[in-house]
């Protein structure tokens, strides 16, 4: 990371915004071989990741699962570790010139006033700083100083000064031990040459002060959901203790008010923020876990849990004791002066006005477009809609008005993490295709010049060299390193122990390598500043010393000793002695390891020729990978063939900026044309995948088609088997021609057929009821758009929509509001009182019990339209053949619902489209592109490298009991029936060591973590 970036190559890609989306794009592109410049306007990368420590629906963190490839650290750290990612914090994009493939981007670097490379995070500056400012998420609940540390996991880990509040008193400059602070730092500008630009600047939470009637900012016990998120977080302001800010008491009654700053035209935010309903459900569960006796009421308009498995999550949440979901509007919040309790004025559905008292109120704030969005849009020539979000097309959802610029995440529309991960993966593919692909793929490892060959130390008696290295005096100021070295020399097997000063510098490492060679040391212990970001340099140092990198042990004196016991040097020094002794004992047990690699076939198998499969195949072809696209039927297109565009020009113009309008049949024709011209895609029609064996890099699939059976080998597999409309079995469907599905209505509208003037639509047909409990996500929007199309043709038509919840998430809410404005009537019904459709001589009649009045309503209907759900095609046999799971409803079960929605635990297989869950066309396209990119990032490695902590088997000790096979989560342990011993498939092993633990004979040992090593380390300290 530098202030002046110049990477003079158009194979680079600029990613603007380093939140969950930006980091995802950056990591995938870097894996696929493209240099990435990762810019963020904040002083450190991470974005909203820092806010969350638990996410729905898993109620765990799991953020590391988004990192492609192997188990990994937090994505902020992984971005920092990746050699192809350049992190440029505290920087804005101010200009963009040139063409796709050859852009010049102007960057404006804000002054941080702290030099990150010098800052050692000692915090002395903040202790003397006299000025306070509100915390990033906590606001006034946890103030910080003018010189403050960005969130803990932000990179770079260094302080920053907020000059808007700084008084320039200079106290921090005086106390800084490393002269890291420069109050006269000036903004700078620089330029980068890139091939494509990805925008993922995220969102800005709604400023609750704009809804003054809720009293945020005046009443201490009114919090935003962002503040509350931190309060229930273990790493947050109160360490997961829920307290009232006014008196630090535990609240007994908490109210959540939904849609604060969403679906509210009074403040110019007509859209739905999509995430908040689930966010609140998570908060409800967390509160019930932390303080089970709390009474919770959630005030809402509609509950929009439309994502995969979200409906179940909501039902579970609602069923918790002491939890009430109340469908009513909160008009105002008032504080009772004595108790500081809060009185909520409510208006119920039937218009009844009520009051309820709570100890704590949480305002569930919506998403706004990110700060600086207008400036960014202007600088890049990107069209924004009325709300400040980027305008994209339904069938090119990653593109914006400026060619070569792509957008992902909440900047396109408010959205949840899985969608953000999907989109970020998708835009990575589009960017990679744009950037003139230099030579993506694994680069040859850099072997230091003149490095001697690795010495065979097998038969040598251990001679351990222990080197103590400091970094800017951080360790030496606490620990007496010379004293530790002196004690270390007395340990058995230690041949050398010395302090080398700055061991991380090039000279320091060369010095160590020289001493190791000269003194013929055969184990090295590096004690001091052993940053994991330097792992590759340490390995290089070992190679330069003529030793295998696995003969190195690290002692993290900085993190484990100097930082944690900074106030007691004597105790710290004693602890350091023991830790070093432990490492010496461990080093003696280390053995050389040569990682092997397995070949990777570049061809990809895409199963399913619908929108998802065709898009995935073309995306991979664009990136240079050969693809076999297998389709079971004799036509391509799948469900896309069934979709039509409705509505006239007026609607199209209105819907354009909301990403709601596009022509499915035109999109289909384009796809078919591109496929017919794409030499890298081989089409296999009327072909089924009968069996798949093998593994990542070398899947062997048995394909059965018109020409018989054939076996092919693939590097990766993408599952895009799709889904279909559920055919209704109720409401007289199939018995009366005047009862149709939404799709049939869509076709009637598109073909200009006569539509009766009284239409009744029934929502949730075959969704959200026993047997098919999930929400099908798309039906509410489809109903609204079709209703609008009917009204457009015949403004006098009477259209009534019978619904349970209207789930018009995101900008679809605008269409819902427009429909109400145009006179479409929305009537709610509740289970079990489903509407009744009867056919009589005078026409169709729909009866329903209107839940507010409790009265029966009878609606005459010339046409009844059923909003049917979606279900997956039956792919259980395929799932079994692939060895991947499906859920109870037949959808494929991804590895992690939040952070890894496109991958399976079994490496090299990916999922997209309706095979994953119900979704709209734009969401399907993004998912297909995302899956393709994840496959490409994997295949770009060129080979499957084996992890350094792989399990190995001593076959003489193995009794073939098979316990390891059961324990391995990755199918990396195999025991052939009747086989003499269990093997490790090294390419699949992730190196967790669990199989070594279950092995009763200790036949399996984990490289670098042998049981003997641990025993001796324990002996060394106890």
């Amino acid at each position, binding site marked *: 990371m530098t202030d002046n970036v110049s990477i003079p190559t158009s194979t680079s890609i600029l990613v603007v915004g380093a939140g969950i989306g930006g980091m995802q794009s950056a990591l995938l592109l870097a894996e696929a071989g493209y240099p990435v410049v990762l810019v963020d306007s904040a002083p450190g990368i991470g974005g909203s990741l820092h806010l969350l420590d638990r996410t729905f629906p898993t109620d765990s963190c799991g953020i590391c699962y988004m990192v492609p490839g192997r188990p990994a650290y937090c994505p902020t750290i992984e971005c920092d570790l990746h050699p192809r990612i350049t992190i440029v914090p505290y920087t804005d994009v101010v200009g963009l010139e040139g063409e796709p493939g050859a852009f010049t981007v102007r960057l404006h670097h804000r002054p941080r006033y702290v030099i990150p490379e010098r800052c050692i995070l000692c915090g002395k500056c903040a202790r003397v700083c006299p000025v306070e400012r509100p915390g990033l998420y906590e606001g006034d609940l946890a103030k910080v100083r003018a010189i403050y540390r960005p969130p803990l996991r932000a990179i770079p880990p260094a302080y920053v000064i907020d000059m808007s509040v700084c008084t320039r008193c200079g106290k921090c400059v005086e106390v800084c031990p490393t002269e890291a602070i420069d109050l006269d730092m000036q903004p700078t500008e620089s330029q980068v040459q890139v091939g494509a630009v990805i925008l993922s600047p995220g969102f800005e939470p709604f400023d609750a002060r704009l809804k003054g009637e809720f009293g945020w900012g005046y009443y201490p016990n009114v919090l935003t959901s962002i503040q509350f998120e931190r309060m229930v977080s273990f790493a947050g302001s109160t360490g997961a203790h829920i307290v009232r800010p006014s008196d630090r008491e535990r609240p007994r009654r908490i109210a959540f008010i939904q849609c604060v700053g969403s679906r509210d035209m009074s403040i110019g935010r007509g859209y739905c923020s999509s995430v908040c309903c689930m966010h609140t459900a998570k908060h409800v569960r967390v509160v019930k876990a932390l303080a089970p006796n709390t009474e919770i009421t959630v005030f809402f308009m509609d509950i929009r849990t439309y994502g995969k498995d979200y409906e179940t999550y909501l039902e579970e949440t609602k069923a918790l004791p002491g939890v009430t979901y109340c469908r009513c509007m909160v008009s105002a919040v008032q504080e009772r002066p004595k108790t500081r309790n809060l009185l909520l004025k409510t208006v119920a559905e039937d218009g009844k006005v009520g009051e309820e008292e709570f100890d704590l109120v949480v305002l569930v704030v919506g998403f706004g477009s990110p700060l600086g969005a207008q400036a960014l849009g202007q600088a890049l020539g990107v069209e924004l809609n009325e709300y400040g979000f980027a305008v994209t097309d339904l069938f090119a959802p990653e593109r914006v008005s400026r060619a070569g610029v792509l957008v992902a995440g909440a900047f396109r529309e408010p959205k949840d993490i899985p969608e953000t991960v999907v989109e970020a993966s998708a835009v990575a593919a589009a960017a990679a295709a744009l950037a003139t692909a230099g030579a993506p793929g694994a680069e040859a490892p850099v072997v230091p010049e003149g490095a001697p060959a690795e010495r065979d130390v097998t038969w040598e008696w251990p001679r351990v060299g222990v080197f103590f290295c400091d970094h800017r005096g951080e360790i030496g100021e606490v620990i007496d390193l010379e004293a530790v070295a002196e004690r270390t020399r007395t340990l058995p097997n230690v041949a050398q122990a010395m302090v080398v000063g700055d061991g991380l510098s090039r000279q320091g490492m060369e010095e160590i390598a020289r001493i190791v060679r000269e003194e013929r040391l055969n184990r090295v212990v590096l004690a001091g500043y052993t940053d994991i970001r330097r792992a590759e340099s340490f390995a290089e140092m070992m190679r330069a010393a003529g030793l295998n990198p696995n003969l190195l042990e690290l002692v993290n004196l900085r993190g484990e000793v100097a930082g944690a016991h900074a106030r007691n040097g004597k105790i710290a020094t004693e602890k350091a002695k023991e830790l070093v002794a432990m490492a010496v004992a461990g080093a003696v047990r280390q053995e050389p390891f040569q990682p092997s690699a397995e070949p990777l076939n570049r061809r990809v198998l895409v199963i399913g020729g619908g929108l998802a499969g065709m898009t995935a195949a073309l995306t991979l072809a664009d990136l240079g990978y050969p693809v076999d696209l297998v389709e079971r039927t004799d036509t391509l297109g799948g469900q896309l063939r069934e979709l039509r565009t409705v509505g006239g020009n007026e609607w199209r113009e209105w819907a354009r900026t909301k990403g709601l309008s596009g022509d499915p049949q035109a999109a289909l024709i384009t796809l078919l044309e591109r496929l017919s011209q794409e030499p890298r895609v081989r089409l296999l029609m009327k072909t089924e995948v009968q069996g798949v064996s093998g593994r990542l890099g070398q899947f062997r699939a048995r394909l059965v088609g018109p020409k018989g059976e054939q076996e092919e080998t693939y590097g990766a597999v993408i599952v895009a088997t799709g889904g279909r409309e559920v055919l209704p079995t109720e409401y007289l469907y199939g018995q009366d021609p005047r009862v149709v599905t939404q799709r049939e209505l869509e076709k009637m509208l598109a073909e200009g057929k006569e539509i009766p003037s009284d239409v009744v639509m029934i929502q949730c047909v075959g969704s959200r009821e026993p047997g098919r409990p999930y929400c099908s996500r798309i039906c509410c929007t489809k109903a609204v758009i079709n209703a609008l199309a009917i009204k457009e043709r015949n403004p006098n038509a009477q259209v009534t929509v019978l619904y349970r919840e209207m789930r018009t998430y995101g900008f679809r809410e605008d269409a819902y509001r427009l429909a109400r404005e145009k006179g479409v009537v929305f009537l709610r019904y509740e289970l079990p009182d489903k509407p009744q459709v009867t056919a009589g001589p005078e026409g169709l009649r729909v009866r329903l019990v209107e839940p507010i009045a409790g009265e029966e309503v009878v609606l005459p209907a010339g046409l009844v339209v059923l909003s049917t759900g979606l279900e997956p095609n039956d792919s259980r046999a395929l799932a079994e053949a692939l060895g991947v799971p499906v859920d109870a409803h037949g959808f494929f079960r991804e590895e992690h619902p939040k952070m890894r929605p496109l991958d399976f635990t079994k490496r090299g297989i990916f999922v997209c489209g309706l095979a994953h869950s119900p979704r709209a066309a734009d969401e399907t396209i993004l998912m297909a592109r995302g899956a393709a990119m994840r496959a490409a990032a994997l295949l770009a490695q060129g080979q499957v490298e084996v992890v350094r902590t792989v399990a190995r088997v001593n076959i003489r000790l193995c009794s073939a009991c098979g316990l390891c096979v059961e324990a391995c*989560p990755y199918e990396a342990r195999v025991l052939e029936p009747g086989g003499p011993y269990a093997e490790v498939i090294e390419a699949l092993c992730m190196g967790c060591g669990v199989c070594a633990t279950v092995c009763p004979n200790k036949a399996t040992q984990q490289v670098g973590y042998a049981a003997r090593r641990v025993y001796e380390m*324990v002996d060394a300290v106890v």
Partner: protein
Amino acid sequence: MSDNGFEPKIVAFLCNWCTYTGADLAGTSRIQYPPNVRIIRLMCTGSVDPTYVLKALLDGADGVLVGGCHPGDCHYQSGNYKARRRIIALKEILKQAGLEEDRVWLRWISASEGQRFADTVSQMTQYLKEKGPNPMKKEWAV
């Protein structure tokens, strides 16, 4: 037994991804905690062999801390669940054998929970100070 200058020794087996990173964060963030813990970093709590814990106790460690990712967050799918099962079983066995199972603690600490790591070490040190030294110390030769 109260605090009479006795400094317990805690051996901690921490997973590489979450708890060790959290422990490092505690140090680099200068969060102060008692110096009684000796960390042995492993890739996953799923690879904490119960014999490691037994060995430490029989050697005379006053406490053993096993720290891993929160449920649902294991970087290897289910290693922490496996650890949880094993440690529960181990504690039961220790109890049956008349040994002190409360010297073994299993805690979930994420990579961003430096404070939680520091608090855990503080609490455990305090608890063991009150409990007194491991009676097995010097009783065994392993």
